[in-house]
């Protein structure tokens, strides 16, 4: 009897400790699934999604992924918005969230990828003046991510994207962009995310870019 009770207690205790986990998993899975939908790719929906991730982050505090995804959704919103005045504010928010993700999960290649995107978004505000400051920063973060994990396909997507959009005279190279994007697709094919909610975005975008580059 005593053993049964202990067992029962153990079962409940585990349930109590893990209680958040299915809720966390469910909520995250739902939001990550939203990010996988193409219809979400507009500045407003991205902001709504980032709000949800911020709520989860505020409740969990020890999980890095909600902060990571909040930053991701915010920087995507910054990259998509037509209103240049909004970019810096969004980039600031994304920066704050990615800093928190970084402190929970130091030296992470996915975090470096977001940092690269944040730097790129800041260039858009004023390419002439900011290109010189944030261009190298964006490239440096890609390099850092590559050093940590050379198998991360997003590293090659970002690299290819930078090569594709940078004018040739400033170091861009459409031919090389194509090669790097092809490499990215190979890496996507081999890539196994650590879990269903681990970062896995970008494959469709890589295909689109490659198609454009192929023209």
């Amino acid at each position, binding site marked *: 009897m005593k053993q049964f009770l202990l067992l029962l*207690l153990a079962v409940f205790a585990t349930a109590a400790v893990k209680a958040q986990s299915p809720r966390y998993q469910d909520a995250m899975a739902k939001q990550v699934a939203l990010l996988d939908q193409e219809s979400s790719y507009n500045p407003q929906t991205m*902001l709504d999604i980032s709000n*949800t991730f*911020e709520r989860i982050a505020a409740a969990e505090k020890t999980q890095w992924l909600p902060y990571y995804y909040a930053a991701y959704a915010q920087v995507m919103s910054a990259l998509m918005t037509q209103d240049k005045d909004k970019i810096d504010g969004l980039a600031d928010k994304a920066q704050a969230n990615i800093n928190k993700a970084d402190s929970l999960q130091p030296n992470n290649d996915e975090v470096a990828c977001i940092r690269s995107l944040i730097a790129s978004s800041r260039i858009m505000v004023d390419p002439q003046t900011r290109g010189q400051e944030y261009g190298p920063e964006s490239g440096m973060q890609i390099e850092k991510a590559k050093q940590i994990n050379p198998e991360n396909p997003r590293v090659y997507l970002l690299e290819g994207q930078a090569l594709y959009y940078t004018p*040739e*005279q400033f170091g861009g190279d459409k031919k090389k962009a194509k090669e790097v994007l092809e490499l990215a697709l190979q890496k996507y094919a081999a890539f196994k995310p650590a879990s269903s909610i681990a970062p896995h975005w970008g494959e469709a975008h890589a295909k689109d870019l490659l198609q454009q580059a192929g023209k």
Partner: protein
Amino acid sequence: MWKHSFNLLFCTCMPMLLLAQQKITGKVTDAKKHPLPGVNVYIKGSYDGATAAADGSFSFTTTATGAQVVVASLMGYQTLEQPVNISGPLQLTLMLKAAMNELKVVTISAGSIEASSDKNNTVLKPLDIVTTAGATADIVNALKTLPGTQQTNDREGLFVRGGTGYETQIFIDGLMVRNPFFTGLPDMPGRGRFSPFLFKGTTFSSGGYSAQYGQGLSSALVLESEDLPTQSSYSLGASILGVNGGLDVLSKDKKGSFGIEADYTNLEPYFSVAKPKQEPTMGPEIIGTSLNFRRRTSGTGIIKFYGYGNWSRMGFKKNSIEYPGYQEQTDVRNQNVYTNLTYKESLGSGWRMYAGLSYSSNIDKINLDTIQKSPVTNVHNRSDLSQVRLQLTKSLGALSLLRLGGEYQYAVERSEFNAYQANYTDNYTAGFAETDIYFTSRFVGRFGGRLEYTTVLGKMNLAPRASLAYKLDDYSQFSLAYGDYYQKPEPQYLRFKQHLDYTKATHYIASFQRLSANYTFRVEAFYKQYKNLVKTAPDTATNGTGYAKGIELFWRDRKTVKNLDYWISYSFLDTKRNYLFYPYEVQPDFAAKHTASLVVKKYFPKITTNIGLTYSYASGRPYYNPNLPESRFMSEKTMDFNTLGVSASYLTTIGRAFTVFVVSVTNVFDFKQVYGYRYSTDKLRREEIVPNAPRFLFVGMFMNFGIDRRQDVINNL
């Protein structure tokens, strides 16, 4: 035992049994009751929440009960945390207060145009300052396309709002630059000595500026040097005028850097092909070097050193107007050194400290010779200036602050005219106190004063300054400024007569500015009263008077046409003064009533070429005709001034070096430009004062290894 276990079981399962959901609805507004969309509203510590819709409404369900906290957060607003008690459906009305941010906070702007790479909402970027076709990489030339400045291209310096070039002071990192221009010759003003690329911030004030700066009656040009470079680089350049090279090295720990630059310019080959109006007899030849050193001493502290040394020589001869049939020759040799060491650090509890030290020296040797007619006249001038400055800044709350500081300058001015000497030394001491008070984030006042004493005059002055600025919305603001400005008379008068008075100007400025990411509109009106200007007739005295008033417009558009950026400025100036030998108040010979500029820059991505175009206009200026009676003094005017500068730069890569090829031409259409007339002593003959090289061609290339600085180069032409 069982009972106990049951309790345990019951307690553990309780939350699952009580999974009743409550609906939370409501609306979020700002302080003015306007709905706020996009607000993240949620129960603290849960995932339950929603994003407010376009009308500010929100709705979500939660399983949380009892005492909870509802959080509402939105970028640009202070996050609201409101305690609630959830026992059933809840309806909430939430109000968010705007957070202080750069866009929303008003800044003091009357009289000044700022170009900064650190801040977003400035009229110009540092690159724009030097992006002007025809500016030939000279900061001052570029500033001549902005409102308030004159196209006075026959004299050195920046002539602002009815003031002379001497009335504009230039400061690098807070320290005054004596002799910022190369020594020129009559009708050939010298260009600025320092590279425009060294500065991350430029504030050009055409009046009403802060009590931090003194000794400029009209204008202050405040330059702030770059911090550390992002990576090491070296550069090479070659043109039809000379060569240059530079090195910029970032230390391994990325906390320090040093840079060296050297250039050699020789216009002799160019002038042997394109004949200038006056015949060159020597050079012009310039050797320039500069050195900088920067070191971060802590997270907040930085030490910077910047210094340059220049050697130049040139000589020209022309037909003498005084002695027909003879030629006059003028040679000038110049040596100049400027050094500047500054230290900035945060002292904690809201205090920041700035300390600066500077030494500069300028030597001019000028020979004037009417060949085979009169003996050579030798002029030898030397000015040495040592200065030290200390400033403390204390934050008062979120935005307001207090500045306190002082400076001391020791100047030695030596002048030798043949064997005749006229030297003096001056000890100048100044203290200032100023406070920026934010009544609200939209309304700021700046109040301060400056106390100065200088031994050469043996007099003290106290200059009050005040500005107000009110922000109407995120983009527009209205500003007012008032201030007294004092300046020592120019050295050429003090050499011969000391204990004069300070010259004085009082400024009143009203301005409106609308600044968005792609458009800028600015209108400014001013009134300036001059007192104690230097008179040379009948005696040297400081009893001259004058005034200047006007209205200025500025419009910039970076959006309407893709890849095209343009700005237009217009200045109306009504000024009269009685100074020097003037018999009464008249419009002086350096001031034009109407001045306008159009600057256009267009980038053609397909051919990776930038085309820049700058057109400037100024109405005719009065000139002195000694044949006229006194009642018609300065009543005749020169022809209008027109100039169009064009530049094209092609960007490419050679090997690993980013390279840019540049062609630029000033005064493309060779418009005739007459700045005035010079009369012989007997008043029988006169000559036009014209530019020595009315049209100037530049062809060159620049290579940069490492960091991409081509953008700097193209923007420079």
